[in-house]
C-alpha cells in the first residue's frame, strides 16, 4: 500500500477512534483514572487533580474550536477573579521581576515550598533581547513597554493578563498566575516593572 495512502487511512482511523472516545459519556472516565493513577507527593497533593470549571470546559472542548457561549462563560468566570494591586500601584522592583521571569521552579513536588515560585516566563516568551534562551509557545514580549507605552488601559490590560490570562483568552496556555496563587501580588508588580520600566532589559 502506498505510504501516503496508508498515512491517510491511519489518520482516518485515529480520527474515528477519537470521536468514539469523546462520545457522550461512553468514553473513558478520565477523572476517575487520574485519581486511581496518582499519589500525593510532598506539596503536590491529590486535590490538584480535581478540575475547576475552567479546566473542565477547556478539556471538554480541547480538540475543537471553542463555542462562543463557552468562551464567554470562561472569560467572565476568570475576569471576576482579577484583583487590582491592593495599594493601586502597579510597579515593583524590575530586578526582582527579571529573577521571577528567569526562575522555572515553584510548586513542583521536587520544589521547596518555602521558596517563592518563579513565573518561568522565558520558558514560553522572548523578553530581554540579550537573553537568547527563550521559548516560542507565547508571543515575543521584547520591548513590551517601549512599544505600548504605559497608559492606564495598557497597564490594566497587562495586569489582568498576568493575574488571570483566561480573563482575555479562554483556555489560554498561559497559567493564571495571580488567580491560582502561583505568584504573589508583589511578584506580579515586579514583573510589571520588568515589562514597563524604560530601564528594564526588556525595553532595550
Amino acid at each position: 500500500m502506498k505510504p501516503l495512502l496508508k498515512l491517510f487511512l491511519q489518520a482516518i482511523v485515529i480520527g474515528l477512534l477519537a470521536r468514539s472516545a469523546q462520545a457522550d459519556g461512553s468514553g473513558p472516565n478520565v477523572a476517575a483514572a487520574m485519581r486511581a493513577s496518582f499519589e500525593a507527593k510532598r506539596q503536590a497533593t491529590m486535590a490538584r487533580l480535581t478540575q475547576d470549571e475552567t479546566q473542565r470546559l477547556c478539556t471538554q472542548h480541547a480538540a475543537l474550536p471553542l463555542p462562543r457561549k463557552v468562551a464567554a462563560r470562561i472569560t467572565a468566570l476568570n475576569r471576576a477573579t482579577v484583583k487590582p494591586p491592593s495599594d493601586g500601584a502597579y510597579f515593583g522592583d524590575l530586578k526582582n521581576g527579571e529573577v521571577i521571569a528567569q526562575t522555572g521552579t515553584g510548586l513542583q513536588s521536587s520544589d521547596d515550598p518555602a521558596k517563592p515560585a518563579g513565573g518561568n516566563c522565558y520558558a514560553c516568551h522572548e523578553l530581554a533581547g540579550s537573553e537568547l534562551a527563550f521559548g516560542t509557545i507565547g508571543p515575543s514580549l521584547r520591548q513590551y513597554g517601549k512599544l505600548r507605552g504605559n497608559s492606564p488601559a495598557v497597564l490594566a490590560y497587562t495586569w489582568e493578563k498576568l493575574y488571570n490570562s483566561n480573563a482575555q483568552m479562554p483556555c489560554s496556555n498561559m497559567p493564571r498566575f495571580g488567580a491560582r496563587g502561583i505568584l504573589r501580588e508583589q511578584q506580579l508588580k515586579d514583573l510589571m516593572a520588568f515589562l514597563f520600566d524604560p530601564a528594564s532589559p526588556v525595553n532595550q
Partner: protein
Amino acid sequence: MTRRARALAGALGALCGLGLTTLQAAPSTEDAIAEYHAMFGDENPAELWQIRGEALWHEKRGPRHVDMSGCDLGLGAGVIAGAYAQLPRWFEDTQQVQDLETRLVTCMTTLQGLSREEVLKIKFGDGEKKSELEALTAYVVTAAKGAEIRLPMQHPAERAAYALGQGVFYYRAGPHDFACATCHGETGKRIRLQTLPKLTEPAGAQNAYTHWPAYRVSQGELRTMEWRLQDCFRQQRLPQLKFGSEVAIGLTMFLAKTAEGGVMAAPSIKR
C-alpha cells in the same frame, strides 16, 4: 547550572566556537547538538545499561532460580527481537494491557519468584543505586532497534487504553492548568531552547517515541518511558504518577499508536 549541564554547554561551546551568541540560536544549537551526537557515533552510555541488562536476562535469579528465557513479551517465550515495537498490548495471562516495564515485572515475579516490592525497590537508577528494571528495559529495547512500530489494537482493552491515553493528553489540571497538550499540542514550538514535538500526529509522535528510552546526559542515567511520563507530570505540578498505572499504560499506548510505522532507534542520547 548543574555540573552536567555545564559539561554539555562546554562541549557545545567548543563545537560552536562562540556558544550561543547569534539570533539563530535555535538552528545553530540544533546543529551543534547533532554534531555532538555524531561524535559519539554508535556509542552511547546507554550501552552500560544494555550490557547489565543482558547479563541479568541470562542470569538464574530469585527463589525459582531461573533466567528470563521463559518471559513472553508478546512474541513468544524469550523472544526479545522487535518485542518493544509491539508494546503495549493485551496479555491473556495477566488479563491486562501492559507496557514493557510492567511486563518485565510480571516475568521477574511469576517466573523467577522475586517479590514485587524487591523488583520495584529501585525503579529508576541514581548513581550507585542501579535499577535492574532499567537495565533489562535497555536490553530489550535495543533488540527492537530498526523494528517498525505495529500496534493492531485488536483487543477492546487495548482500544480502551488508547482512548484513555488520548483523554488524559488533553486533561488540564493543577495550579498551572497544564495538560500534555499545553506543550505537545502544536508543531514548531519550543520551551527555552528545547524543541517540542507535537505528539498527536504521526511525525511528532514518531520523532519522540522511537527515541525513548534514552541516556539523559544531564542526569547521567538511562531513562525509560515510565520515567519520562512521571517526570512530565512533576513538571505539570501534578502529584506522582504511579508506576504501571492505567494512565501510564494508556498514555504509552496513545503515543505508541500515534507513532505507528516509525522505526525504533532507542536507546538514544539526550540533553
